[in-house]
């Protein structure tokens, strides 16, 4: 059995004291340990942002790519090696601004990966500009008079796009978050885990004090049914005194993209097949097209 220690990194995180990313890091480690996924069995693909540095701070395979592009990179990883678990970790600017298109398309394709978004509703690393999930009126260096963009609802967007697993976690509730990530890891298909992540520097209004009294768990709502597509969509709009966390929607019956790719329907993952020249009969067959 693995424990969190197996995922202990060499480097100390460079995040600010109190940053929600510490909780997310711990939850990721807990989930991997619980689900017995060893550091070499998974690749964490990240973008650029404060939170995207995560794999540097634990023992795991990581690929810290470009701002906005980890979902596309991860798609390529999965298609070339569907034997490797893949988790994308990136910020809300990364995922919902620069990377929005990859997110929507990965969701509708049902690529089998976990897409964890550290949603601090702000650009952390570039010093506090408003993000697609920032509330209206937010004053930041790029919106000094208050933002006039209506915020995106990423969960509703994911559900609409066809995501088969859509959840929200809270960085202040480690156990619940670790459970969510675990469920997402076990889900066969695209799994969004949008995490309410306090940024204690640039978005003080959405710190632990804001979230703690407001979050409630969908799992504890006796009448909530995460297989009801429409109800799930509707629930994502709840935001106020009560903020739902947990699994909004889940449909494990939809085939993943990878399962359906003609070249992958049989045999080992692509990268485990020998890379060899063509056999003479193959050459012959190919050349006959041109004679």
């Amino acid at each position, binding site marked *: 059995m693995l424990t969190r220690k197996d995922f202990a990194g*060499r*480097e100390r995180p460079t995040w600010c004291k109190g940053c929600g990313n510490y909780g997310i890091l711990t939850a990721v480690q807990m989930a991997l340990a619980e689900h017995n996924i*060893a*550091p*070499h*069995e998974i*690749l*964490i*693909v990240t973008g*650029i942002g404060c939170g995207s*540095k995560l*794999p*540097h701070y634990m*023992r*795991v*395979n*990581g*690929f*810290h*790519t*470009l701002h906005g*592009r980890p979902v*596309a*990179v*991860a*798609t*390529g*990883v*999965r*298609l*070339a*090696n569907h*034997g*490797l678990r893949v988790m994308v970790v990136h910020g809300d600017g990364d995922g919902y601004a620069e990377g929005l*298109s*990859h997110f929507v*398309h990965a969701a509708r394709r049902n690529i089998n990966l976990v897409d964890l978004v550290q949603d601090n509703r702000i650009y952390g690393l570039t010093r506090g500009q408003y993000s697609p999930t920032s509330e209206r009126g937010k004053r930041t260096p790029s919106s000094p008079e208050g933002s006039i963009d209506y915020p995106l609802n990423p969960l509703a967007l994911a559900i609409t796009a066809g995501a088969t697993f859509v959840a929200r976690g809270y960085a202040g509730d480690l156990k619940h978050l670790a459970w969510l990530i675990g469920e997402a890891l076990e889900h066969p298909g695209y799994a969004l885990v949008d995490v309410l992540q306090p940024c204690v520097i640039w978005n003080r209004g959405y710190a632990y004090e804001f979230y703690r009294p407001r979050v409630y768990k969908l799992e504890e709502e006796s009448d909530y049914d995460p297989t009801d597509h429409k109800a799930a969509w509707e629930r994502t709009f709840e935001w106020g005194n009560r903020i739902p966390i947990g699994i909004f929607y889940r449909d494990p019956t939809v085939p993943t993209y990878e399962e359906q*790719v*003609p*070249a*992958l329907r049989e*045999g080992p993952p*692509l*990268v485990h*097949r020998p*890379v*060899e*020249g*063509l056999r003479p009969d*193959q*050459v012959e067959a*190919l*050349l006959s097209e*041109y*004679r």
Partner: protein
Amino acid sequence: MSANDLTIRIGGEAGMGLESSGAGFSKALTRGGLYVFGLPDYYSRIRGGHNFFSVRVAPHPLYSHAEPVHVLLALDLETIRRHIGAVVPGGAVIYDAKEDLPDDLHRADVNFCPIPLTALAEEKGGRAVMRNTLAFAVAAGLIGFDPTYLESVVRDNFARKGQAVVDANLRVVEAGVDTGCAFQADFPYHMEAIPDAPRRLILNGNEAFALGALAGGCRFVAAYPMTPGTPVLHWFAAHAEQYGVVTKHAEDEIGAINMAIGAAYVGARALVPTSGGGFSLMVEALGLAGITETPVVIYNAQRPGPATGMPTRTEQGDLLFVIHASQGEFPRFVLAPGTVEESFRAGWRAFNLADRYQTPVIVLSDHYLAVAYRTVEPDALSFDEVTIDRGALLTPEDLDGLEGDYRRFRVTDSGISPRATPGHPKAVWTTTANEHDELGAINEEPENRIAQVDKRMRKLDGMAREVEGPIRYGPEEAELTLLCWGSTYGPAREAVDRLNAERLGWANLLHFHDLWPFPVEATRAALERTKRTIVVEGNATGQLESLLRTHLGYTADGSIRRYDGRAFTPEQIEQRIKRIEQTE
């Protein structure tokens, strides 16, 4: 009289199937032991407008299209209007008898053959669209080409559609050949099949590149359609299931290149075919491949820019762009094949270079090379020569023996660090697009930066040894040397032949097919043996010229540039050279 170099051109509207029938006819000629150069010319629209397809045929190898037309197959009057000027004296114009030929389209020195193309196609084949098959069959009859080769192609091409379709097409061919034969006596240009010739191939640059890439182990292709790179995606998609290739039509080019980088990172040989506009969108990710030392191959089939430009035309305008693309500095290869044979070779060689140097490789083709069909020798695609060298790629067995931390970016003399792929318990690490240390951790310290930049840049030493200098065609020493790159090789080579036919041994050429790292030493040596040089290239600013100045301080004696969206012809190069001669 039997000619030794004919062009048969068919013209009509988009959507009439000119290209597929032209390609079929080209294949028939090839089966008949002849050499073909087949070039489609079309607008960026799906139906209507004016398209044409030129089939140049000869009993000897051809390297480009040519200007004179011997048989014009006019599916509409517009074709005559546009091309009558190109028809040689004594040439023929085949047109539909139902059309009234206006006087101003007439030429006394040309044979106008009104043939009931539509009516006959409908009568024999049942469908008017068979007109072009009919027209080509007329042409075959006219030049005295043995129709059995046409029939064999018809049988192969339509077999999927059932015997009835095959039979209908065969009837159309027969009727066409008969009609053509009737005119044969009056027609001075004949081209007979050469029986028992070796079974040559006919294909275009896109197909040859795809074949080479597949042979070289390419098993992942992500792309967003963009003319003229799209057919490479289609080719792989069509062969995907059979050859175990994963292809992905992505949401955009940024998605495509990043998917390819992901696939390459975990060990696949990954390719992204595109054109210049798509390449522009991949520029940031090119740098990701550069700093993370991920091998990936980008195939850019150029078309005239800027921006959307002329989607279905040709140009060699992206050379300096791809050499310098992306912020910061890192090594890359730029290969620019000039022929079908070189396209094939670039296909597999690109992957070896990418793996050996763990860096991106750009293959620069262009519309002309990508789409023009050429007959090549049976063994022109040297599958035997294909090697698969994955460079310093660690196997699971290698990693089993690993002691201590895996250092993905170990500073080595060659600049190449042994590469693992994720999945082995002994090699657990993080790679980053930030500057990093040997282990892959983010590192901003000056010493580390210098060590890593130098390490990456040291690869250039090895890379400089890989790049091949220009290839000479023509006599070793000549009064005039043409310098060209990429697809201009074909017309330039024929221009050299034409010049030498007049003045024996007067001209030769140096053809560059590896452009970056620029093959400095080999070029210097080659230039030392030249007297007067003229750079011939398909752009407006002289990009090869610029490289020669930058890397060798070399200024050529003249330049011939073309940037009207069309490829050079041998005749044009010859004339421009003569004009330069005269003004000097």
